[in-house]
């Protein structure tokens, strides 16, 4: 059995967004991706706070990118998922699939 903290819902969504975005994952694109996929407004500062925490756990790395005039000359911070991060996502998926299996219908939808 694996030890360590579970990934939260938002943690998992962020890691999946990083996987989907690849090399172009920074604050704006991550927030847009989450808003498109979930239909909810995302607080950009929460994205950074969570990614910083995931970075401390070694699941994500970050690097500074270029600055553009429309950003007021401020640099972008790009985020990349690590091998440990990918492993965590895979484990979370497996656990969720196991829990999902055999569930009865949820409010008229197939589980």
């Amino acid at each position, binding site marked *: 059995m694996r030890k360590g903290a579970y990934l939260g819902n938002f943690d998992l969504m962020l890691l999946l967004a990083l996987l989907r975005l690849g090399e172009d994952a920074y604050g*704006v694109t991550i927030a847009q991706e989450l808003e498109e996929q979930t239909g909810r407004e995302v607080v950009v500062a929460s994205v950074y706070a969570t990614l*910083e925490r995931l970075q401390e756990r070694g699941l994500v790395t970050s690097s500074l990118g270029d600055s553009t005039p*429309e*950003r007021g000359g*401020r640099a972008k911070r790009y985020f990349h998922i690590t091998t440990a991060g990918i492993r965590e996502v895979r484990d979370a998926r497996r656990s969720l699939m196991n829990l999902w299996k055999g569930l009865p219908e949820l409010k008229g939808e197939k589980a």
Partner: protein
Amino acid sequence: MTSKQPPRIATWMLKHFGSGPNNDAILGDLAEQYLQKDSAMWYWRQAMKAIPVSFFKEIRGHKRIAARALLTGWVMWILGGISIFPLVFFGTNVGFDFEPRHPIGTAWSFMWMPVLGPASFHRPFSFVFAVALPLIVGAMCGWLVARWQICAQRHPPAIRISQVHRDQQTGVVLLFAGSILLMDLLLFGPFILTVGPLVANLFFGPLAANVAASVLGILLGGGLLRDNSRTVSN
């Protein structure tokens, strides 16, 4: 390129009160997204949420540094108060009442000495004391909290002074200013109960000015109102 600028006040607030190493990146992201969304309401919402989110993230992530900042700030506040206030009121009967059986009364007589002490002075003078003294002590304490921390060392046992990292300065200064504000608010209830609402009402203006000056002093001394853009560390 467009000249559309995000709301200035919201940007100013986030720039000065946003904590952590990613504040510049957040400001950049919001500016970039503002061009697409074109909604001042959206920008304000994002900026006002970013301040508490980044503050609590910093404090939760650096609990020991936060505790040391509170210790340093309060030690300096008390030292500043007992050294500067009596000096200013030297030769008068103004002072604070140390009453061990009434710690709350002792606390407010100390915290609000610049207001309660010179209450018998002419009104403009009492207001000057109520504002100037906490502003000076607050600025001193804010300056120290943003730069240095008192910490205890176990091996060998010693008290030493360590430097505060630049990325953590905003968070610790806000935390200390918040603790002073909270203490003032907590003391106000027992003060009204003890002196009665009529007397408390007389002091309300100078007390509010005193509290505002304390917080402003801390923010000024802590460098939070200075216009220096912080760079992002890699």
